[in-house]
């Protein structure tokens, strides 16, 4: 699809999230907003027959060990949902800017044309999943008993402690690598794979949940898509993909918002440079180049000079 020539709001719904590009906010100092909205429906898992306590199998799989669980109360459920929504949204919202390297999103302000970059926003809408409700993903949540040190979970089945910091591993210096699991899982839900995916020890043709896929060195392990909490510029992939899609400009692949798709594999190879078969399309790709610092709109001369305007310019 082509972008409108005048300032407007453009929306597109993908299988795994909705996206809105808002150029009405563009002026000499402000970029376009690209908001990814993810609707997650949550469901309680409680002990059977209204009991206060019970057992639940790791990963919801009856072949796996059971953990002690307790019934959700209204208060505990509401507090959990609120923390989940607030912390996951704030983790992913307003962290990336995409530098616009295409002749689009160019608008006049005071007689000067500016090329606008993209400010990446994230909105998480959380509600109780019920028949007839509409969500991109449904996540079931069980409440671990206080005596339980751990419970098996994954992207659509959490335990109540998955919103709290947890030590997954230690780095080479012996420092703990901590993660709040839900922010990692939200990464999956918007299309991100594991930090070493596409690397030598985690080929995309194999199981991308294998231990090595979570990192083979400290940097990969510390990544939010490894075992830690660090955000990297290549995690802006979902926003880059949306921009390529709705602008028709750029070569960022368009996976069906599914980390196992072939297109996703190609993308991982591009951003990590790990896959020797994709050395040409390396992380140096300038298409909607992701940054973790604000880049202001540029004049034609600044674009020509390939300038990066990272401090607020004095525009006359």
């Amino acid at each position: 699809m082509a972008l409108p020539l005048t300032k407007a709001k453009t929306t597109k719904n993908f299988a795994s999230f909705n996206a809105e590009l808002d150029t009405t906010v563009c002026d000499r100092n402000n970029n376009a907003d690209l908001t990814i909205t993810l609707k997650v429906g949550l469901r309680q898992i409680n002990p059977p027959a209204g009991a206060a306590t019970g057992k639940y199998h790791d990963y919801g799989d009856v072949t796996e060990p059971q953990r002690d669980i307790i019934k959700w109360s209204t208060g505990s459920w509401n507090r959990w949902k609120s923390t989940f929504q607030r912390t996951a949204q704030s983790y992913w919202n307003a962290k990336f800017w995409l530098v616009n390297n295409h002749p689009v999103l160019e608008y006049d302000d005071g007689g000067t044309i500016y090329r606008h970059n993209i400010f990446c926003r994230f909105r998480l809408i959380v509600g109780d999943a019920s028949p007839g409700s509409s969500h991109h993903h449904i996540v079931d949540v069980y409440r671990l008993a206080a005596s339980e040190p751990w419970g098996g979970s994954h992207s659509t089945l959490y335990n109540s402690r998955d919103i709290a910091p947890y030590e997954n591993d230690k780095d080479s210096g012996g420092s703990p690598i901590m993660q709040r699991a839900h922010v990692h899982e939200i990464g999956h839900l918007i299309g991100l794979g594991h930090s070493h995916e596409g690397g030598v020890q985690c080929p995309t043709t194999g199981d991308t949940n294998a231990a090595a896929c979570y990192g083979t060195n400290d940097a990969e392990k510390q990544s939010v898509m490894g075992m830690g909490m660090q955000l990297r510029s290549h995690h802006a992939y979902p926003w880059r993909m949306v921009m390529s899609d709705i602008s028709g400009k750029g070569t960022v692949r368009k996976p069906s918002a599914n980390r196992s798709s072939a297109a996703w594999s190609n993308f991982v190879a591009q951003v990590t440079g790990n896959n020797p078969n994709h050395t040409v399309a390396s992380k140096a790709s300038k298409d909607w180049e992701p940054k973790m610092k604000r880049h202001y709109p540029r004049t034609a001369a600044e674009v020509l000079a390939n300038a990066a305007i990272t401090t607020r310019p004095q525009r006359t």
Partner: protein
Amino acid sequence: MAYIAFAKQPGRVTTQARWITPAVAVLALLAMPLSACAQDKEPIMINLDSCDESPLARSRCMIEALLDDLSRTYLLTGGGGISSIDQKATWVYEVSLSQRERVDVITYSFELTDEGLVEIVGKQKSTRSKG
């Protein structure tokens, strides 16, 4: 690879370890009474002439050997620990360790040596993906 076996020496637990560091051998010795205490107030006596002395002796030698190997090589600090140890063939055991989004599976192959000890001759890692 590591050897571990239990030799006859009445009155105390003895672990013989070969091809492993002295420190690991000491750790293994220390671990034995601790695990015994968890089951019984009296220390368990291990009196084996050979790991092939009985089916239980074989199993115990192999499981102790894989536990020793895991303690030294499986360094992830998170997860739910060992969820199962399954015998897959007479000389093959599979251990599963629970982690978020997956179960790490390590398959050990063993051989009995002429001295009646158990030797790890193969180790393969795989994953059972969850979710």
